[in-house]
């Protein structure tokens, strides 16, 4: 028994050393221009903009679904698009903008539907570990304790991926399908929109597994949204929740019920979508490479809707102020 335990401990120590070595000592030379670094640029812009400003918060549905310049020009308010990757998790996505929300700001939250029923999408996927360890360790301050526990196995995974030279596959999602060109830091404009793909033809759509009705909506995700709403109100800002863009055929093949469910749960807790989710269900030809990523035409169409919605909100606010 003693021999067995000693051998097991020795073996586990070797594994632990390999992981620590990989995590902290192996340099990651290949990701200097990776799209994850756009997070630094987005934070710099967010930090530099005076209030009132419009902050778009969400995952890649925003990075690949918004023309921020048009929004800024139409509404005469500074805009920053923080959307980068849904895999950062809803907790991180909300926490990273909180310190920058000030009086008069409009925060437009456009979460991916997956944020509401996947624990990984709530707490963060491997890509968040990559962001924390490679891109900017200052982001650690946005991580909660429960997230940290969740991230331990993913961190081990990340360390091994580095060791096996797989870090690019993980952070440049497109590599596996060969469409990696747009996943670069310099594909983003100053507002935070991914613009390089606008010049590309539509790519193969990466299919998502059919969502089943048995998977429950995470109450923790709903609570996070409710708390975020309170937080913005306390900071004298306004939170508007908008649905993400979503591909029609995916919507019809297994997601309709889930999206309706999310919609009704958000309504129940008084944090509804400001426009119905169906408004952002677009035909398949408007999508670039996933059910969330729009192409140029799609981006413009969605931006039209967003401008219209924001204008009507601003108008109603002005009316209230006058009254």
């Amino acid at each position, binding site marked *: 028994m003693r021999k067995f335990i000693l051998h097991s401990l020795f073996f586990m120590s070797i594994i632990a050393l390999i992981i620590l070595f990989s995590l902290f000592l192996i340099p990651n030379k290949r990701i200097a221009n990776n799209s994850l670094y756009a997070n630094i640029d987005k934070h710099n812009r967010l930090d530099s903009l005076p209030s009132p400003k419009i902050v778009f918060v969400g995952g890649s549905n925003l990075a690949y679904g918004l023309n921020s310049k048009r929004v800024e020009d139409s509404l005469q308010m500074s805009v920053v698009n923080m959307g980068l990757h849904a895999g950062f998790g809803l907790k991180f996505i909300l926490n990273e903008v909180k310190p920058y929300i000030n009086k008069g700001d409009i925060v437009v939250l456009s979460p991916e539907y997956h944020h509401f029923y996947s624990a990984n999408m709530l707490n963060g996927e491997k890509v968040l570990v990559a962001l924390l360890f490679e891109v900017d360790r200052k982001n650690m301050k946005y991580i909660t304790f429960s997230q940290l526990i969740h991230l331990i196995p993913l961190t081990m995974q990340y360390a091994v991926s580095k060791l096996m030279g797989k870090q690019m596959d993980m952070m440049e999602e497109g590599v596996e399908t060969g469409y990696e060109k747009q996943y670069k830091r310099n594909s983003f404009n100053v507002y935070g929109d991914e613009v390089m793909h606008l010049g590309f033809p539509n790519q193969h759509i990466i*299919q998502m597994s059919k969502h089943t009705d048995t998977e429950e909506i995470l109450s923790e995700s709903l609570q996070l949204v409710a708390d975020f709403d309170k937080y913005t109100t306390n900071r004298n800002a306004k939170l508007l929740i908008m649905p993400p863009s979503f591909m029609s055929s995916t919507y019809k093949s297994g997601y309709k019920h889930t999206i309706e469910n999310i919609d009704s749960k958000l309504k129940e807790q008084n944090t509804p979508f400001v426009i119905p989710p169906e408004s952002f269900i677009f035909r398949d030809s408007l999508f670039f490479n996933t059910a969330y990523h729009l192409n140029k035409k799609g981006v413009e169409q969605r931006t039209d809707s967003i401008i219209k919605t924001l204008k009507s909100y601003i108008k109603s606010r002005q009316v209230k102020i006058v009254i």
Partner: protein
Amino acid sequence: MLFNSIGFAIFFLIVFILYWTAFGKKYKIQNILLLISSYYFYGCWNWHFLLLLIFSTGLDYFTGLMMYEAPDKRKKQLWFWLSVCVNLGFLGLFKYYNFFIDSFADLLISFGLKANFATLQVILPVGISFYTFHGLSYVIDIYNGRIKPERNFIHYSVFVCFFPLLVAGPIERATHLLPQITRERTFDYTKAVDGLRQILWGLFKKIVIADNCASIVNPIFDNYHIQSASNLLLGAILFTFQIYGDFSGYSDIALGTARLLGIELLRNFGFPYFSRDIAEFWRRWHISLTTWFRDYLYIPLGGSRGKKWQSVRNTFIIFLVSGFWHGANWTFIFWGAFHAALFMPLLIFGRNRLYTNTVAEGKFLPSIKELIQMLTTFTLVVLGWIFFRASTLRDAFGYIISLFSHSIFTMPTHKVSTLSVYIFSFMTVEWIQRERKHGLSQFESIIKLQPIRWGIYIFLILSIIQFGGKSETFIYFQF
């Protein structure tokens, strides 16, 4: 609590340390620990169903005693049928009620009649098919006078609820497992190391092979109507490896975990994809279920005794019931019928026991004939899995029809180069080890140098870590 989760690793570490160190190695106290940990393990899934498990255990324990002490045959039969009916009743209620109601309603509608029956909104208790069959085998064995009932309720409960096998088998027999539970167990270094190796191999199969296949297979099957034929072919082949890696991986972890606790469980897989015909495949796939049906259904029905047509009928019934056991869906029944149809010619022409040994025994490579036989069997099995995996029969046939189009000659859009290397390495190791118990069995006799052996273990662990973290559930948990 999944075997492939950090939670289970912590749970098992605590159980292992307490089991071998805390109670002076007294087996009765070890059994209490096993029972508490098994209940905790099951309660982590859904504690409400723990009550059902305890009730089911208590029922079989009690009826077993009553049958044994029954003064006459009539009373013995009464207790026997009470246990069988209640066990199958629960199984039918939770697993098959909605299926029968829906199928009956569909039948009426097809005759132009109105049908609106209430269905139950119930969750299937995890492992119900497995622990029900455990209990049934115990009751049937007592009824047939093969065993005496276990008088200690704790011992009997451990037999039914032993956590490594509770939710997905192997389906144990009282004759095999109970004697191990009711005697002292000693720690054996060699067996414990072998247990760890089997767990490692099981985790590799589940996390590296099955889960990676799943990430490609699921979107293909879910959207088969928009896939090219080459993608569909890839999906079907990868599902074949997925289900094997998933289920045999689970069994390996279960067997290894039990071995670390000094208990040997029944072998569930014998390298089935190296089978030379369907009959051999079924001697190597889910062995504990196949032999269960053989002993408790096929033989009581008459088995191969009597006329040929009776034997054919009995075999057909076994395959259909086996298919239905997997789930309340016509796809599973059809899958069973499909395999029955493949098995029948072998049975009719008396060739169903042609291959009872291991392929290419004592040789490194198979002969051309054996290779062709294995590839043919594999192809038929792949075809069968399409029915198993599809959501409906319509989807399954749609999938197969779509396979036969000119796009079969295009390149699949899913890149599987890394996965292919893993699958190839996995099958190579299994081929080398096919005459042993599992993929890493007696590994020291193959790789004699310890540093190389440890290097391979480290590589396997790092691969598991790299692909792990998703904690994908096991396919057979739904059964």
